[in-house]
């Protein structure tokens, strides 16, 4: 049995994704402010999950410390925003993304030399170091974190407006998706795919795989930074939890949940994860047993069920369901 990634999206899935994009574009006109903000958060996590998918699904590098680059850009925005006024989006966003990319480049230089379980451990170790650097340092906000009193100033549009912020995030989501889908079929993307399947043979054929993996790690860190910047801007608050172990682990679960290696799955996974998490937290109490409080237990069971029933994630499951229907119609 050859386990291939779902890289080429069948027409049926493309159609569903296009419907999803239309639904996202229309949502702020239907949804309340509360739900508009919730979907904004889902889209931000979608960008974060896609950035991890570049490593996990495409290159085969499972990073258990990806939240470090997410959080760093959020902190960059917090440090760049003065207490009494807004700061321009146009230079803080590139700078924050660059900061995350630079951190990923430096840490990546050490971690992409390792393989398998060691890679997982070393990425986690570096992320924990970053976490405690902020957690233990009052000058960096300490365990309480830092407030961002003003959303970035964009001149052309007003990010303080929730609907405008929503569309700005949607544009980022679609832009990152289009970029990564192109990248997947580029010479660089094909080489990353080859590294996932058989790095040994890639080297024997003359590919300097270190450079490829380091570039992928840096790029993934920078894109995680974009998501972290948006998160900081939306919530107006950053704390060390953003770079913590749980955030990294959630990202891995999102990618697995949606289906790895095609970026669309990462978005689906992020939305599903957030939605299900919300639903489990809202579960009613049964007698003295507060089911909502134990959401992590239900989440665990849910993930296990998806992995067993849909090895290619929710997107793969959708594809299977649609194809069966098509075959039935014919």
């Amino acid at each position, binding site marked *: 049995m*050859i386990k291939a990634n779902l890289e080429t999206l069948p027409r049926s899935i493309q159609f569903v994704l296009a419907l999803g994009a239309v639904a996202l574009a229309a949502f702020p006109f239907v949804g309340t402010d509360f739900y508009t903000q919730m979907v904004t958060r889902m889209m931000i996590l979608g960008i974060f999950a896609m950035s991890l998918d570049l490593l996990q699904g495409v290159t085969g590098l499972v990073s258990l410390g990806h939240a470090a680059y997410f959080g760093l850009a959020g902190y960059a925005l917090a440090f760049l925003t003065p207490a009494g006024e807004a700061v321009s989006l146009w230079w803080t966003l590139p700078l924050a993304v660059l900061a995350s990319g630079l951190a990923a480049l430096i840490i990546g230089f050490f971690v992409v030399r390792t393989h398998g379980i060691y890679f997982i451990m070393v990425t986690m170790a570096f992320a924990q170091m970053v976490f405690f650097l902020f957690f233990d340092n009052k000058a960096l906000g300490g365990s309480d974190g830092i407030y961002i009193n003003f959303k970035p100033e964009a001149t052309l549009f007003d990010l303080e407006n929730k609907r405008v912020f929503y569309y700005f995030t949607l544009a980022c989501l679609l832009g990152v998706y289009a970029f990564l889908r*192109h990248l997947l079929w580029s010479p*660089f993307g094909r*080489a990353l795919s080859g590294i996932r399947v058989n790095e040994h*043979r890639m080297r*024997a054929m003359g590919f300097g795989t270190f450079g490829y993996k380091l570039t992928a790690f840096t790029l993934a860190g920078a894109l995680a930074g974009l998501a972290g910047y948006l998160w900081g801007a939306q919530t107006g608050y950053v704390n060390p939890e953003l770079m913590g172990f749980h955030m990294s682990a959630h990202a891995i679960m999102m990618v697995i949940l949606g289906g790895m290696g095609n970026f669309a799955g990462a978005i689906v996974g992020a939305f599903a994860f957030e939605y299900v998490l919300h639903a489990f937290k809202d579960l009613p109490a049964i007698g003295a047993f507060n089911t909502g409080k134990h959401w992590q237990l239900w989440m665990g069971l849910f993930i296990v069920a998806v992995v067993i029933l849909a090895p290619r994630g929710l997107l793969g499951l959708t594809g299977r369901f649609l194809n069966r229907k098509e075959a039935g119609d014919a």
Partner: protein
Amino acid sequence: MREVLLSAKKLTKRFGGLAAVNEVSVDLWRDRIHAVIGPNGAGKSTLTNLLSGDLPPTSGQITLGGHDVTGGSPEAISRQGLGRSYQKTNIFPPFTVWENVRLAAQSRDAQQPWNPLRWLGRATNSATANARAERAIELAGLQARRNTVSGAASHGEQRQLEIAMTLATEPQVLLLDEPLAGMGVAEAERMVELLLQLKKDHAMLLVEHDIDAIFTLADHLTVMVNGTVIASGLPADIRADRGVQAAYLGEDH
């Protein structure tokens, strides 16, 4: 004109106290096939791994196309013009036959992973890589199988694919580790034909167990036992060597 393309001097590889390869010297010439034979555990595969950079030698020196590549990485040695195939099929099973070969050919385009221009544009649009892959596919006789998922191809086809991937990097020197292993008679015959055809422009090291094929192909024969060369010379002389007969050929014949 014949020229030495690869020259290994007194290569030694120790694993702890065991010398898997012990002071072995090999010269590979263009238009010549140098076969290495020996019983299992003689160090043939280790020798191949030393020459390809998969393993660093404990001592000794390797010169490839006039450059000292001793201790070089597999990718550096590959780019210096060496191509190797593997005894155990070493392909990209989820990819099609074509994508396997195209990816090998892509390695000879400018790589530059950090260059954003290499992140856009479709990989399959590279005319140079496509031409290299096409040539390799034709040489290996896999035209009819290009869209087959390689993991689902037959064993013989996977062996052909091994060779096609090696050729797609347009090497000067070929290291072929048991290319005939597990092949049917007709497939093996075709492969022998191909190797004779490739011989003209390549220097070739052939590790093989098929004695008939070796005496058909080899211009020079080295016999290894326990990591050491016990005989090296023209195939006819080796066949007459009593020491070799006792150590190796006799057991098989």
